[in-house]
């Protein structure tokens, strides 16, 4: 299992860089992954999305789709693309320590 250094911690990741063991996730890990994804700093809006995605994942076993995120009232689609430019579903899931999203929507 490939490992990666995130700050001072070593975390297990899959070939695409997603965490394979959620218990290794910390806010520092999230910030380090966000930096890799080109997001210099995670603000309160980012954290709102991350926390919602983690909650959904715990309840349903899957990261929520963009449609679900929009409907939840946590964030609008427009804002989501501004917060995580270049692929919000994948980036936010990776930063949140979740698996790579599998849907087509």
């Amino acid at each position, binding site marked *: 299992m490939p490992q990666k250094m995130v700050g001072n911690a070593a975390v297990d990741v899959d070939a695409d860089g997603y965490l394979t063991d959620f218990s290794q996730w910390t806010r520092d890990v999230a910030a380090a992954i966000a930096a890799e994804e080109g997001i210099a700093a995670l603000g309160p809006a980012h954290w709102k999305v991350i926390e919602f995605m983690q909650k959904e994942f715990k309840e349903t076993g899957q990261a929520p789709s963009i449609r*679900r995120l929009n409907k939840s009232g946590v964030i609008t689609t427009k804002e989501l693309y501004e917060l995580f*430019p270049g692929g919000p579903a994948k980036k936010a899931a990776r930063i949140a320590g979740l698996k790579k999203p599998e*849907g087509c929507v």
Partner: protein
Amino acid sequence: MNEKIKKVSIIISKGGLDGVYPGLIMANGARMEGIEASLFFTFFGMDAITKKRMGRIKVATVGNPGMHMASLIGILPGMSAMATSMMNKTMDKLDIPPVPEFVEMIADAGCKLYACKATVDMFKLKKEDFCSQVDSIITVGRFYELAAGGHIIFT
């Protein structure tokens, strides 16, 4: 390692659910991958952005070879409505939005939407007939200019 696709211009030329959804999913999928995307609606594909029609796009059950149903059955009254309703319910369960919501989502994701001038003239439509997400009515020549440097996907 292949070079990543950076820009796509997607044409939606056919009506019906099976005609409009592929292009919409491609456009949304492109935006989800950070690919610059635009949609060009022409001919019956234009139903997907026409206010009066976008909420009631159906799937044809007659003369539709892709439909898993003999045309003789498909012709019975109510079959198209039933097939459409079943398909809509299934898509909703898979989190695929109905056309008006999907168009809004795709526009919010940063995709540009254009209507084909030739079809607009043919169907005698005006900008007010389209949903608010449509950026402008353009000619095919303008489409080619806008598509420069990217891939063109025809559906």
